[in-house]
C-alpha cells in the first residue's frame, strides 16, 4: 500500500467518522453486549442495588428455557398468525396499483364524472339539510364525502387517488391506533353501531332460514374453500411441469397449501373430505414428480408467486371456513339475537381486528408506489402482442403483468416478512396492551415486557437474538435468491 492509497483511505474514513462513531456506540457495541447478555441470568429482580448478587453466565440455559416456554411458543405463533395478513396486503396493494395505473385521460369521462359527482353532492347535501341532524344524516354525509372524492378524483386523476390511498400508511402511528381503538369500541364505536343496525334488520330473515339451508350454505362454502386449495395445488403442479416454477418454489407452495388445508379441516366439520383432497393431491404430486417434467428451470423460479398466491389462498380459505362455521348455526343464533363482535376486546377477534386494520394501512403503502413504478416499466409491446393473440384481461394479468412484476413482488415480500417478524409492538401497546389474555402479544411486545417491565434482561436478550436469527434467515434467503431477481 503506498502513501497515496493510505491518504485516500484516511480521507474516506474521515468523512465516515461521525457515522462510524454512532454505529459503534449505538449498534455494534450494544449488539455484542446483547449477545453476551443472552448467555447470562441478568435479572433486575435479583441483581439490583439492594441485593448484590453477581450476574452469572448460564450459557445456553436461556435458549433452552425459551423453547420450552409455552408463552414464547404462543407469542411466536401470534406473530406468525399476524403475518398471514401479508400476502393479502400485498395482493391489495397490487390491486390498488393496477387500478391507479389506468389511463385517466379519456376525453369525455371527466365531464361525465364531474356531472355525476355534482349531482351526488347536491342531492346528498340537500337531503342532509332536509333530514336535519339525525342518524340518517350520517349516510348522507358519507355519500357526500364519496361525491367530493369522485369530484376531485375526476379532476385530478391518479395523483388524487394515490394521495388518498397513502394516508393510512403515512399517518400510521399512535394516533391512528388510538383512533382505531375508538372505532372498534364494542359498546358504542361507529363500526359496531353500524353493524348492530345491519344485524338487527337482517336477523328476522335469518331466523326464518331453516337449518338445512344454513347447513347447505355452510357446506358449500367449505367445498369452495377446498376446491380453491385443490385448484391451487393443480395450478402449481402445472406450472412446475411447464417450467414456470422451480422445485423449491413448488415445495414451498405445496407446504403452505397443505397447512391451509389442514387448518381449514381442523377448524370445520369437513375433516374427511379435506384429508381426502390432501391425500389425492399428494398422490398426484408424487406421480407427477416420479414421471418428471419436460421443461426445467432454476429451483426458486416463481418463488414470489408461490408464496403470495398460496398465502392468499390460505387466508381466504380460513375466512371461508370461519364464515361457514358462523353460518352453520346462524338460524339458532339469529333467533336469540345477533350481536356484533367485540373486536380488540375479544380473545378470538383481537388478532383479526388488528389484521384488518393492518390491511387498511397496507393497501396504499410504499408497496403500491413500487408496484406503480413496476407497472409503468412493463413493456407495452407485450400487451399489444397479447391483444393480437386475443388474450382476455385475466390471461393478460397472469401471463404478462404478474410474471413481469415478480422481482418487485419478491423484494416487497422479503421486506414485509422482515417487518412482520419484528412488528406488532406499536399496535399492541396502543390498542390492547398485548391482551386480551396475550392474544395480541407478538415477539417484539414480549421483548419489551421482559426487557423493560419484568426486568429479565438476560432472557429478553435471548428472545431478541432468536428473533434476530429468524430475520437473518430471511435475509440470507434474500441474498441467495434476491440478487438474481434484481440483476435481471
Amino acid at each position, binding site marked *: 500500500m503506498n502513501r497515496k*492509497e493510505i491518504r*485516500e*483511505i484516511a480521507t474516506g474514513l474521515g*468523512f*465516515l467518522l*461521525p457515522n462510524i462513531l*454512532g*454505529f459503534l456506540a*449505538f449498534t455494534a*457495541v*450494544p449488539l455484542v453486549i*446483547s449477545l453476551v*447478555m443472552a448467555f447470562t441470568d441478568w435479572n433486575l429482580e435479583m441483581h439490583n442495588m439492594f441485593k448484590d448478587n453477581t450476574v452469572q453466565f448460564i450459557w445456553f440455559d436461556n435458549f433452552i428455557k425459551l423453547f420450552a416456554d409455552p408463552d414464547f411458543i404462543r407469542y411466536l405463533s401470534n406473530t406468525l398468525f399476524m403475518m398471514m395478513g401479508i400476502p393479502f396486503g400485498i395482493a391489495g396493494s397490487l390491486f390498488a396499483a393496477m*387500478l*391507479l395505473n389506468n389511463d385517466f385521460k379519456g376525453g*369525455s*369521462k371527466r365531464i*361525465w*364524472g364531474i356531472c355525476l359527482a355534482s349531482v351526488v353532492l347536491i342531492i346528498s347535501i340537500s337531503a342532509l339539510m332536509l333530514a336535519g*341532524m339525525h342518524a340518517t344524516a*350520517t349516510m348522507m*354525509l*358519507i355519500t357526500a*364525502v*364519496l361525491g367530493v*372524492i*369522485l369530484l376531485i*378524483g375526476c379532476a385530478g386523476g391518479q395523483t388524487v387517488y394515490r*394521495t*388518498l*390511498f*397513502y*394516508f393510512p400508511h*403515512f*399517518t400510521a*402511528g*399512535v*394516533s*391512528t391506533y*388510538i*383512533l382505531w381503538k*375508538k372505532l372498534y369500541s364494542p*359498546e358504542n364505536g361507529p363500526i359496531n*353501531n353500524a353493524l348492530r*343496525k345491519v344485524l338487527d334488520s337482517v336477523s328476522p330473515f335469518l331466523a326464518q332460514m331453516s337449518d338445512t339451508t344454513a347447513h347447505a350454505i355452510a357446506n358449500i362454502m367449505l367445498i369452495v374453500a377446498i376446491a380453491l386449495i385443490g385448484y391451487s395445488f393443480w395450478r402449481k403442479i402445472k406450472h412446475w411441469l411447464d417450467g414456470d416454477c422451480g422445485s423449491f418454489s413448488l415445495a414451498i407452495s405445496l407446504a403452505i397449501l397443505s397447512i391451509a388445508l389442514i387448518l381449514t379441516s381442523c377448524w370445520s366439520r369437513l375433516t374427511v373430505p379435506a384429508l381426502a383432497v390432501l391425500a389425492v393431491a399428494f398422490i398426484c404430486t408424487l406421480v407427477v414428480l416420479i414421471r418428471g417434467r419436460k421443461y426445467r428451470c432454476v429451483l426458486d423460479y416463481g418463488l414470489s408467486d408461490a408464496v403470495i398466491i398460496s398465502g392468499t389462498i390460505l387466508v381466504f380459505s380460513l375466512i371461508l371456513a370461519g364464515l361457514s362455521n358462523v353460518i352453520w348455526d346462524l338460524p339458532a343464533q339469529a333467533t336469540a339475537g345477533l350481536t356484533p363482535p367485540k373486536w380488540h376486546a375479544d380473545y378470538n377477534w383481537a388478532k383479526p381486528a388488528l389484521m384488518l386494520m393492518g390491511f387498511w394501512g397496507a393497501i396504499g403503502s*410504499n408497496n403500491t*408506489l*413500487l408496484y406503480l*413504478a413496476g407497472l409503468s416499466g412493463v413493456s407495452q409491446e407485450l400487451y399489444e402482442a397479447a391483444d393480437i393473440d386475443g388474450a382476455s384481461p385475466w390471461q393478460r394479468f397472469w401471463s404478462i403483468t404478474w410474471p413481469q412484476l415478480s422481482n418487485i413482488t419478491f423484494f416487497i415480500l422479503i421486506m414485509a416478512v422482515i417487518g412482520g417478524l*419484528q412488528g406488532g409492538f406499536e399496535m399492541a*401497546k*396502543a390498542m390492547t396492551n398485548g391482551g386480551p389474555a396475550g392474544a395480541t402479544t407478538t415477539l*417484539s411486545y414480549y*421483548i419489551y415486557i421482559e*426487557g*423493560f417491565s419484568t426486568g429479565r434482561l438476560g432472557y429478553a*436478550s435471548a428472545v*431478541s437474538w432468536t*428473533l434476530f436469527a429468524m430475520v437473518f434467515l430471511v*435475509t440470507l434467503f434474500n441474498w441467495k435468491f434476491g440478487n438474481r431477481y434484481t440483476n435481471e
Partner: protein
Amino acid sequence: MKKYIFSKTARMLLLNIVLAIVALSMVLPFTWMILASLKTLAEVGEDSWLPRVFQWGNYVEVFNIRGIMFGRWYWNSIFVAAWVTFLQVFTSSLASFSFSRLQWKGRDQVFLMYLGTMMLPGLVMMIPNYQNMIKFGLIDSYPGLILPAAFSAFGTFLMRQFMMNIPASLDEAAEIDGASKWQLYWDIILPLSRPAIVTLTIFTFMGNCNTMFWPLVLMKSKDKFTLPIGILAFDSSQGQQTNLLMAAAAMSVIPMILVFIFMQKHLVKGIMLGGVKG
C-alpha cells in the same frame, strides 16, 4: 384494436367509482375522528356521526386538561425531530459523499456492511442501549433521545443513490481548480443534492415524530414526553374523554396529512430511491 363491452366513458366512470369507494374507506376513519372531536362527550357514542353543535372549544380544551401537557409534548416532538433530522442529514450526507464520490480501497465492502446493518432488528440493540443510557445518566434526557436516532444507514443509502447520479466530471473540474475534498463536498455536491436532502429531511422528520418505542422506555417525566407517548399517556389516564382524545389525535395527524399533500413529489421520489435496490 380491442373491443370493450362498455364504451370508454362508461369504463372510466366505473373505474373512478371503484377508486372513489376504495379511497372513501381510507378517508372515513379520519372523517369520523374529526367529527367525533367536535362533539360533546355525551354525543360521541351516538349513531349519528354529526355533532349537534360544533364544539370547536374541544381543541382549546385539550391544551388545558390537568396532567395533559399537550402543547409541551407537541413542542418536544418538533424539537427532538428537528435535532434528529439535522444530525442525521448531516452525518448521512458526509458518509454518502465518502461512499459515492471518493475512491478508496475497501469502500464497497464497507458500504455493503453498512447496508447489512439496515437489516438488523432494532429491538436487539434496545436493551443494551437502555442499560448504557442508565450508565451515562442519559435517561429522561433529550440527548439520550436524539443521539441514537442521529445515525442512519437508510439515510446514507438514500443519499448515496442520489449522489451516484451526479456527473463525475464535476469532481475532476473541481480538482483541476485545486479544490480540497471538503470544498468539493460543501460547495459542489451538497448544494447539488438538495432534492435528496429535502426528501430525507421529510422522511426523517415525519418518521421521528412517530417513533414510540425509544421515547416510551427512555422518558420518565411527563413534561419531557414526545407526542406519541403523550397521547398514549392521555389514553391510559383520561381515555374515556373520547372527544378530547380525538381532538388531540386530529391535531397530531392533520399536520402530517398536510405535509404529505404538499411534499408528495419528494416523498414518492424518496421511496423509489430507497425501495428499488440499486
